[in-house]
């Protein structure tokens, strides 16, 4: 205990990124549901890929020649990414909205009043965790899927054209989707609202776009996150953006959501 009248001796410098990163890591792993969700993403994500490939192998002999020729072993093994984008996106929402919902945000901002710094630390920690988990799902799914696709079914190796890009890309895709969701939650602040918005952009928007006149539909559809994801994961996706352009665009969406969220974070009362 320092007798306060004389003035307490403070550590040199100022609180900053290193402390905030550690704090965000503690926050993330101290909630049991977060860890469950990440575990579920790996198990179910890999499981869906395994099911999809095993199912193809089982019906290989009855498939038409055309289907056999256009069969994409890499994309099929990565089918779990479509489940993973939901769990990782929802986790991205909860990482931020959970603080607002419980009021923890006020303790957080009392400890670290420079709010954009908190957002950067949160996005960095969540982004790395999401990327690691998503890459684990991707590589696990790919290898498991290729084992299940035994001859005579077509199967791929990482050396096959576009395979490595699709596998690594699907992890990057999920990470970008998660950060986009985190940005949405920073803007919206409420869990239910942010999850609705996220699911709306990911799943409902494509349905609406597909109902548009065919003269403009493809031009708009290629900008949708799920379409970009499809182009990254599968080998043939028509008039979609090329995988890396799409990924860049998606990172742009995430950055935009995070920047808007960051500006609002500073302007609004906590």
């Amino acid at each position, binding site marked *: 205990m320092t007798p306060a009248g004389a003035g307490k001796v403070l*550590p040199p410098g100022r609180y900053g990124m290193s402390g905030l990163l550690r704090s965000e890591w503690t926050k993330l792993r*101290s909630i049991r549901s977060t860890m469950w969700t990440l575990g579920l993403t790996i198990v179910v994500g890999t499981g869906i890929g395994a099911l999809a490939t095993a199912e193809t192998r089982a019906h290989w002999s009855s498939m038409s020649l055309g289907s056999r020729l256009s069969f994409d072993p890499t994309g099929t093994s990565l089918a779990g990414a479509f489940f993973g984008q939901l769990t990782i996106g929802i986790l991205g929402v909860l990482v931020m909205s959970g603080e607002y919902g419980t009021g923890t945000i006020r303790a957080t901002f*009392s400890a670290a009043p420079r709010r954009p710094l908190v957002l950067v630390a949160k996005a960095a920690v969540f982004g790395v965790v999401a990327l690691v988990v998503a890459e684990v799902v991707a590589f696990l799914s790919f290898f498991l899927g290729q084992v299940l696709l035994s001859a005579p079914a077509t199967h791929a190796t990482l050396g096959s054209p576009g395979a490595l890009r699709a596998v690594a890309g699907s992890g990057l895709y999920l990470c970008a989707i998660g950060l986009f969701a985190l940005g949405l939650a920073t803007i919206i602040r409420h869990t239910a609202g942010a999850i609705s918005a996220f699911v709306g952009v990911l799943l409902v928007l494509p349905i609406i776009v597909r109902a548009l006149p065919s003269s403009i539909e493809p031009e708009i559809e290629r900008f949708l996150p799920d379409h970009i994801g499809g182009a990254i994961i599968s080998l043939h996706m028509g008039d979609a953006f090329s995988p890396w352009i799409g990924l860049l665009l998606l990172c742009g969406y995430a950055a935009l959501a995070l920047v808007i969220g960051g500006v609002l974070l500073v302007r609004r009362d906590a």
Partner: protein
Amino acid sequence: MIEAKGLTKHYGTKVAVDQLSFEVQPGVVTGFLGPNGSGKSTTMRMIMGLDAPNAGDVTVNGRHYHDLPWPLHEVGALLEAKAIHPGRSARAHLQMLAETNHVGLGRVDEVLETVGLSSVAGQRAGKFSLGMSQRLGIAAALLGDPEVLLFDEPVNGLDPDGIRWVRNLLKGLARQGRTVFVSSHLMSEMALTADEVVIIGKGRLIAQVPTAELIAQSSQRFVRVRSPEIAKLRAALDRDGATTVLEDDGSLSVRGLDEIAIGELAGRIPVVLHELSPQSASLEEAFMELTEESIEYHGAPATSTSEKRAGA
């Protein structure tokens, strides 16, 4: 030390805090008193930099909260007890706060011990009672061993033992030379804890006074007089400028003259006295008197018909 100057906060058209200026000094417990909805919590959030004022300024140790290099080492606050993620353990909650400001993890166990939560440190905060949550909130406030401490209604939900514990804790922190600012709508609690009070009503400053002075200066302070010749004494008191009220039990309540002056006057008349006793009002009464004008809803005051103001 906390300094607020002309602090003002609107929510839409409603003014929550209006031109509020006050100072909170180190070494004493300063009570922040006001009815519910008078702007206490809003003011505390502005001190903590969580809500931005529409006008005015507030500093802690001469700095805006935003500019503090190590916020937790300088200011500790309990704002809402239940502002804890229910899925996180008490220890993890404190750990994630400690890490932001490079507070050692040994300190986490220390404050858990201080507030008596060591045995449940690993349990999820969602299972905590309101009283336990208050203790966890207090532990968080103490975490960085700060010189300035803010507590918003810290005794809410605590049992009598807990209330006594908080009271002693606050006094102890002030004795160590810290600045202790504690809000409450319970005047009786503040009478026991606070050395000084900042009183607000409808977001405006009503008074900042030492607690003892508030009670002493209150017009509720009066002298009860009993005498077999009460009418004669009353006439003399009225002539001397006192305000007298004849109570139902036959006693006379005298305001404006103290017991010495009344006794001497009685001796000069002379009138026999059966009782001459100074009555001090509770802080509660003093507070009610001060905030009568500012509280938004209150019942019509009961007026005594036997009241007579001499020289009015």
